């Protein structure tokens, strides 16, 4: 069968029709990406049958190698949506609706960032932490032949987020700490998160037996 010979207008219409079709196909393959973060949150909320519009609290890159993450408030609950950027928009990768009694989440990474080849563990604390004045993370680490404690102070990034990253102390890291940060051995880490109010009082303390 011979295809009809098209004039230029016909070719344009054919090309645009095929382009729209292939774009739709691609969008389908990408789960029909959203154009805005609000739409992404709305869509994630619906999968939990949430009717209330989720309010975006914070957009973070929780893991340099992983997806970006949106944190939102839906009613009294914290909604976390991991997402990827695609050529056609934002695509949800994962979602978690935390129970009503969870008002913050700590995402900790062993390889959070690095300076001159030295790994720096760290992470982010995100949630309804507007009233928290200071956050502190105590890390008890252990290698097969060394152990120690690191204390990381959270830096406020937004009303809803504290960022934890290990800074080099004035006197430099100890030998054991250098072994931890430069070596290839994966340590076991136990964490204790403490949140303080404006009056210095302890608002919350949570232990993480396996920090990462």
């Amino acid at each position, binding site marked *: 069968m011979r295809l009809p010979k098209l004039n*230029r*207008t016909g*070719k*344009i219409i054919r*090309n*645009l029709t*095929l*382009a729209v079709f*292939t*774009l739709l*196909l*691609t*969008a*389908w*393959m*990408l*789960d*029909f990406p959203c154009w805005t973060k609000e739409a992404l949150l709305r*869509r994630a*909320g*619906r*999968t*939990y*049958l*949430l*009717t209330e519009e989720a309010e975006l609290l914070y957009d973070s890159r929780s893991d340099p190698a992983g997806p970006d993450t949106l944190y939102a408030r839906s009613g009294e609950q914290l909604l976390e949506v991991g997402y990827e950027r*695609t*050529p056609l928009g934002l695509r*949800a990768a994962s*979602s978690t*609706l935390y129970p009503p009694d969870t008002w913050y989440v700590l995402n900790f990474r062993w390889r959070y960032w690095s300076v001159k080849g030295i790994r720096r563990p760290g992470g982010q604390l995100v949630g309804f932490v507007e009233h928290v004045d200071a956050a502190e993370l105590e890390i008890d680490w252990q290698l097969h032949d060394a152990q120690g404690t690191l204390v990381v102070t959270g830096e406020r990034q937004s009303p809803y987020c504290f960022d934890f990253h290990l800074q080099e102390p004035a006197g430099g890291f100890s030998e054991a700490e250098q072994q931890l940060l430069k070596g290839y051995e994966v340590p076991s880490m136990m964490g204790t998160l403490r949140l303080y109010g404006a009056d210095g009082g302890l608002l919350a303390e949570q232990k993480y037996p396996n920090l990462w």
Partner: protein
Amino acid sequence: MKGSFEAWMAEVLRCVRFLPDRKAIRQELEAHYEDHVRDLERLGYDRQLARKRTLGAMGDPLEVGRALDRIHKPWLGWLWLASKGMLLLCIMLALFYTTEGAWRFQEFYMPPDPSSYEADGFAFDTDHTSYTRVAVSRGGSVEVCGYEISVPYAALWRWANEHGEHPYYSMTLVLGVRNSRFWEKDPDPAMGQLTLRDDSGGLFAASEEYYDYTVEERDQRWAGCVHPHGVRSGPFYSEYWYWITSWEQPPQWTELVCPSGEGFTLRLEWEGAE
């Protein structure tokens, strides 16, 4: 004389504003010119004269050029080129992402005939003859967050050992979810949190919560568990299969409860079961 034709051609092409078409126009006009020259030569004209006459017949270059420019509109030409580029880009994108998501081509699940559900026996153990279907039921439907959720099929199964002893009952249940927004995902997280209660006050926990507890704690808290057993998905309709264990006596009614978000409750009547 050939030189004169070149000058004529240059003048024509100068009038055509859409540059990418000039090459094709040149080829066409040259072919036309050569054909005409050959025709005249066949009639006995010498080559020189044939060329001269042909050039005269080609017309005024400005007039021809303007006419060609009207046909080869620059905006239409650029639009055509842009559409070609766009199509190429879209095809490359589609090829790249189609390989990633090709499994979706299997996803055109449509609601089956309700009588075909478990027609061949207990869905999760079809070879097991110890299971007997003792009752079949179906529930109503609710609309939540744009999803129409219903129970098109539920069955109570009785199990007993080879001597007909130690019987117990379990339930298989299909939850159908119609979603007119085909571009959105199914409510999988909410469907994973389904619980069940029955007429005797028994509570059946969602499996994601149930297995967080020890066996003793489970026995104290709940009568059993709602196990998600699989999903069949299509763009507009998905089915969630559950297996709910277990009862010593068949229930009179059961209520399926989804606690997530707006939530919903769907009641199933089992009266007349054995």
